[in-house]
């Protein structure tokens, strides 16, 4: 965590000129539409899988959907919310709470009997 402090700007004056340096280097139209296409394709795949009864009845259905959903989640966060390109502080601020939230969800699923641990 203490690495945050390494990005100290030299002075307030240094900041003053930062907005001037408009640089067209961030992900552009070509990245954005490709991301949108991938997201759409994954969504189509999800809905398609939903309509295959044999797959829905199998063991792979729920894990597959969860993985696809997590994939979409990650793509939006990384590219559209540009966490991939942004200050790492934001990654800490997001993934920390996200992990605590996910673990809480998981714990509640165990506690209410929706998930089990098998003991011999």
């Amino acid at each position, binding site marked *: 965590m203490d690495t945050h402090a390494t990005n100290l700007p030299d002075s307030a004056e240094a900041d003053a000129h930062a907005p001037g340096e408009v640089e*067209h280097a961030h992900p552009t139209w070509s990245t954005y539409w490709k991301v949108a296409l991938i997201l759409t394709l994954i969504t189509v795949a999800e809905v398609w899988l939903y309509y295959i009864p044999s797959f829905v009845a199998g063991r792979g259905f729920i894990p597959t959907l969860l993985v696809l959903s997590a994939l979409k989640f990650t793509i939006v966060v990384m590219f559209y*919310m540009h966490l991939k390109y942004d200050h790492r*502080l934001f990654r800490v601020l997001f993934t920390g709470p996200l992990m605590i*939230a996910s673990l809480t969800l998981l714990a509640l*699923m165990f506690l*209410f009997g929706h998930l089990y641990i098998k003991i011999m």
Partner: protein
Amino acid sequence: MTAPAARIHVAHTSAPAPHHYTTLGLDSRKVAIWAFIGSECMLFVSLISTYLIYKGRSVVGPFPHETWTDPTTGHVLKPILNIPVTSASTFVLLMSSLFMVLALAAVQNKEKPKHSRGDRILGNSKLWLWMTAIAGTTFLGFQAFEFTSFVHEGLTIRTNLFGSSFFTLTGFHGAHVTAGVLWLVTLLAIDYRRGLGSRDSLLVDIAALYWHFVDVIWIVIFTLVYLIK
């Protein structure tokens, strides 16, 4: 890690107002919105957990994925979730995220020369803000349609555990979308009044972060509530 060029972009959107020194060289509003988004994770996890805990535990129908026969009247109630309609609304919300990033890019590059018609369309911040707001409103329209048709089919927030947890979860999400649309309309008003330029990038950036987060929550809801039986 990241390419040097990408860093410049970041410094640009997150830089604080000129005379304000900040420790990380970031604008405080952006730090705050990320903390807020982290907090919202816990909010939605509480809602989603409750939905999942109560899944399959309603004592009367209608149910989301199964048919239910009322033992007293013999009425047969079909599974209530409408996957085709919701898939369409999910697609609309996904597209709204695309429009949103284009709006942000347009504001960031406002002062750059536009050489072609394509450049001018991509650089039109009002167009993309409008598109995002319209997509968001369309999503809300789908939700209103879904809610009213559910009520017609006999599912209200009082009917059973599914009704209570479903309407509350998706209603909370809808309220977030509504707040987002209002935020976008406010940005549009500013754009019409004085024009959004690259110095306003941060205003659009934090709105975009919120908007995408609401989209991301829907991605989770769509899978956990609608697709998984």
